[in-house]
């Protein structure tokens, strides 16, 4: 860090300090500073997550399970390194919950920068979870104690919510632990829509049409999934409310209705239709009113797979007007069309990153398909995967991860990697091939 930027940072720090004191929040500063003085952030932050403390005897087995879920969330975030709890000295069921009861020196010796200390109580079918994040070096709590309550069967969601809060307190951005990933799964000879939690748990089957269902796309508020189904004999776009599984027709024009993409921030979708003969991308309402024909089609060319920029002002899509499939972008306000990819002769399935800084896609090189990313200006094009069939990328809403389908472990499954190409783990473990993942936005929280 140069001297100039050091002083600028120091000045900003003093302003920050004043603001916080004025708000009576000075206690939280050290945790923030901790992150700021290591801007390179090469290493993950070591955090201790002891078993949760059960305050009532019911469901005592959750003490370890909940701790596992929280550790797993924090590990997946890419920001934290949960410590092996074998080295922990205190019995988690005896150890205290308040700052005054925490033996910070012990935790510090074990290498923990932070300690996540949680307790829970079960009453009948409901559960209440209390979580505190402690700054080990500063010997104090970070932020306020958090509390979550709800139905017992939703305990995983509550642990995810605390993990989200930890991310928010330490990085300034919520995690993606309350998000879902929708995908297509082979069931016998049929393809059905499913979704699961971001960590692969709680798979839910959405369609049972015993037909071909494809291309799930989450609505911006995570309440609906648009998808394609052949159940009427022709591909039409349907919507489903995931909370009550009620379905409705979105787009059933004569010809082909495929590849829905819900527009960020608006109750509108981009779809590919052939209702006017050629293939083109249209903007439709959730009840199928055509709002606009974008006119990206060109003669008898293919136009398919739109995916919106986060501001909803542009979309990336696939066109073969050059002779083979390439990624293009279209600006809906200027009507300008731009070819983005020039390397390779089979580039499909674009996915615009939630921060707008990258477009991921599936590209063929030799006989193999890999996930590539490219800047929206066409620069820094490079592959993230190497070999086999890696297709259909989609981004986590914080842009840190990419889910995609891959056959690297045999049959096609959904895998997740960090968006710099590292990490990589298998999300879906059900039998039957899975493909076409779509990562939901975060849920709005009160």
């Amino acid at each position, binding site marked *: *860090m140069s001297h100039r*930027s050091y002083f600028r*940072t120091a000045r900003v720090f003093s302003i*920050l300090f004043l603001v916080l004191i004025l708000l009576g929040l000075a206690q939280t500063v050290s945790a923030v500073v901790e992150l700021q003085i290591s801007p*390179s952030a090469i290493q*993950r932050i070591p955090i201790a997550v002891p078993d949760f403390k059960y305050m009532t005897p019911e469901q005592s087995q959750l003490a370890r399970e909940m701790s596992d879920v929280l550790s*797993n969330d924090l*590990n997946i975030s*890419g920001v934290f390194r949960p410590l092996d709890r074998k080295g922990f000295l205190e019995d988690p069921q005896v150890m205290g919950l308040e700052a005054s009861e925490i033996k910070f020196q012990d935790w510090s010796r074990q290498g923990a920068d932070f300690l996540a200390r949680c307790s829970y109580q079960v009453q009948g079918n409901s559960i209440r979870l209390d979580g505190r994040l402690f700054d080990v070096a500063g010997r104090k709590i970070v*932020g*306020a104690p*958090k509390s979550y*309550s*709800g139905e017992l069967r939703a305990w995983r969601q509550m642990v995810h*919510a605390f993990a989200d*809060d930890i991310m*928010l*307190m330490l*990085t*300034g951005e919520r995690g993606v632990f309350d998000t879902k990933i929708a995908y297509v799964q082979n069931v016998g000879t049929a*393809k059905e829509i499913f979704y699961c939690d971001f960590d692969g748990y709680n798979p839910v089957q959405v369609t049972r049409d015993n037909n*071909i269902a*494809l*291309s799930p796309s989450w*609505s911006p*508020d*995570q*309440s609906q999934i648009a998808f394609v189904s052949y*159940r*009427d004999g022709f591909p039409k776009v*349907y*919507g489903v*409310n*995931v*909370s009550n599984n009620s379905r*409705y*027709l979105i787009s059933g024009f004569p*010809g*082909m209705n*495929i*590849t829905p993409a819900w527009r960020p921030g608006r109750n509108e979708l981009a779809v590919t239709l*052939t209702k006017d003969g050629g*293939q083109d991308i249209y903007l439709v309402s*959730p*009840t199928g009113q055509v709002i606009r024909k974008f006119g990206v089609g060109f003669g*008898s060319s*293919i136009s*398919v*797979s739109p995916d919106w920029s986060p501001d909803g002002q542009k979309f990336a899509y*696939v066109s073969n007007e050059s002779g083979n*499939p390439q990624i293009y972008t279209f600006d809906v306000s200027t009507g300008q069309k731009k070819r983005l990819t020039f390397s390779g002769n089979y580039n*499909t399935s674009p996915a615009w990153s939630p921060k707008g800084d990258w477009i991921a896609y599936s590209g063929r090189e030799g006989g193999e*398909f890999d996930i590539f990313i490219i800047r929206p200006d066409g620069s820094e094009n490079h592959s993230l995967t190497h070999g086999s069939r890696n297709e*259909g990328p989609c981004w986590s809403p914080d842009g840190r991860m990419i889910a995609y389908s891959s056959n690297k472990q045999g049959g096609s499954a959904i895998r997740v990697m960090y*968006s710099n190409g*590292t*990490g990589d*783990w298998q999300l879906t473990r059900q039998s039957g091939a899975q493909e*076409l993942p779509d990562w939901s936005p975060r849920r709005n929280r*009160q």
Partner: protein
Amino acid sequence: MTQSGFFSVGYYIGLSYEGGKRMKSKQSVFLVLMIFALIAALSACAKKNVPPPPGYGAAGQEYGAAAGGGPMDEAKWRELGINSEAEKREFLDKAKVFENQDVYFDYDAYTLTEPAKKVLDEKMAFLKRFPRVAVTIEGHCDERGTTEYNIALGERRANAAQQYILNSNSSNLKLTTVSYGKERPVASGHDEASYAKNRRAHFVLNY
């Protein structure tokens, strides 16, 4: 899903792949965001329920029931313009050939080759003889390439076959197209011989 699988995933990965330079230039913005984050975190209501997802938008039309075919009776034969047993036999014989002969395409292509046009000419002869029969032209692809693009490609194949017929037949034919992309292969091998069989327009008679 094993716990250890997750824990072994790259421990020493940076917060993001933005370099140190970018981070510095963004520090002040980051700090401001940090203040907001802290305020948001601390002023957040302490007790939180995990809410059910709210409703979204207006629900449109419900699913319609899928149309089903029925047995052939004399009225249906007459609708097809078939009035005798001999005509019936002729129709059924030719229909078999009509449905069994596919129109093939090159890889990632939907232009009609000369052999493809020859097959389509035979289809037109059948449709000239039985112009009232409803036909669905299915577009199919081989397994290479992505699911969605192949649906779009199959649509272009079915459309190319349909246009060829419509361009040289003046009668009011009942033609529709549907693309199955790579979802309904006829050959299951992973070699060029299978791929070639799967890159096709397949004709189905609806009677």
